[in-house]
């Protein structure tokens, strides 16, 4: 037997996910460091460029993602209480909210394109040096694109979890994969909280 108890197995799996998250913190942290350096240098141009972001979609998407974090953690609680149909339903809702986020993001990219804020594709931001303004928008597309990739992986994993829950793999005694999935999902939410702060409320006052 590999583990002495189920608790030990659960603890080990969660520590593994925390370790993975630590590497992810550095992955996104490096990108945010780049933002910090260039924003310190080109503050006025960054502010001008950021004021063109679509804040209502950014805010709405944050509500959607934070709500999905709630439904994810409630799904884990439902599994612990042996409420299997409820667990499955909450997991489907979580994945659906993730999908809504991606759809809104796609629509936002379209609005950005129409507003000439996609670097190299007819880019123009009034009243700013075009080079630094493009740096901001490069960060925007790079960071939100990588976040969307993480979210897409999360949606796929949550759907697999929903399938396995329905199949009867999980119950009050064993729901460890749900806990680990929940950790990943919450981390993707944390990354978004920082991206929101760095992109949307800037340069409008």
């Amino acid at each position, binding site marked *: 037997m590999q583990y002495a108890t189920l608790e030990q197995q659960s*603890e080990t799996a*969660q*520590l593994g996910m*925390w*370790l993975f*998250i*630590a*590497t992810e*913190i*550095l992955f996104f*942290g*490096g990108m*945010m*460091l780049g933002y*910090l*350096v260039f924003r*310190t*240098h080109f503050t006025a141009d960054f502010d001008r460029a950021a004021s063109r972001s679509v*804040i209502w979609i*950014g*805010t709405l998407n*944050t*509500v959607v993602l*934070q*709500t999905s*974090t*709630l439904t*994810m*953690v*409630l799904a884990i*609680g*439902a599994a*612990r*209480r042996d*409420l299997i149909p409820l667990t499955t339903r909450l997991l489907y809702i979580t994945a659906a909210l993730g999908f809504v986020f991606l759809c809104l993001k796609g629509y936002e990219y379209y609005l950005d394109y129409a507003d000439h804020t996609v670097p190299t594709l007819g880019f123009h931001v009034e009243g700013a040096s075009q080079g630094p303004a493009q740096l901001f928008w490069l960060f925007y597309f790079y960071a939100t694109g990588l976040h969307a990739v993480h979210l897409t992986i999360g949606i796929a994993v949550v759907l697999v979890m929903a399938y396995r829950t329905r199949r009867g793999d999980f119950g009050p005694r064993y729901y460890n994969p749900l806990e680990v999935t*929940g*950790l990943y999902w*919450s*981390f993707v*939410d*944390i990354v978004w*909280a*920082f991206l*929101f*702060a*760095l992109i*949307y*409320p*800037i340069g*409008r*006052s």
Partner: protein
Amino acid sequence: MKREAWLIYVVGWLALLVLLGISAGSAYLHLGGIEEYLPVSLALIQAVIIAVVFMKLRTGSSMKWLFAAAGFYWLLILIGLSSTDYVTRFGYSGRAGFDRMPAASDPALGQH
């Protein structure tokens, strides 16, 4: 699920939404300069709420805390040490950034 457990998650979620509302609202206000730092500060509080409530750092072993803290600590090293380079890269004028690159006629370059 126990009722208290539901409650703490719903309260945590509401707190996240309130902080988001303040962050988005601050974009349109003049707050004497603090609006510059407010969104990131609020994001930091949101991150702590998500980690402690939704990622359950409040329960379980202290090893979890150690792993989570290590990630944050490495981030501080990454940003802290890198910033010392960018702040001091050109001269010691006390001003930050590499836009302070000395002009060709700058005595600091040895041209008089």
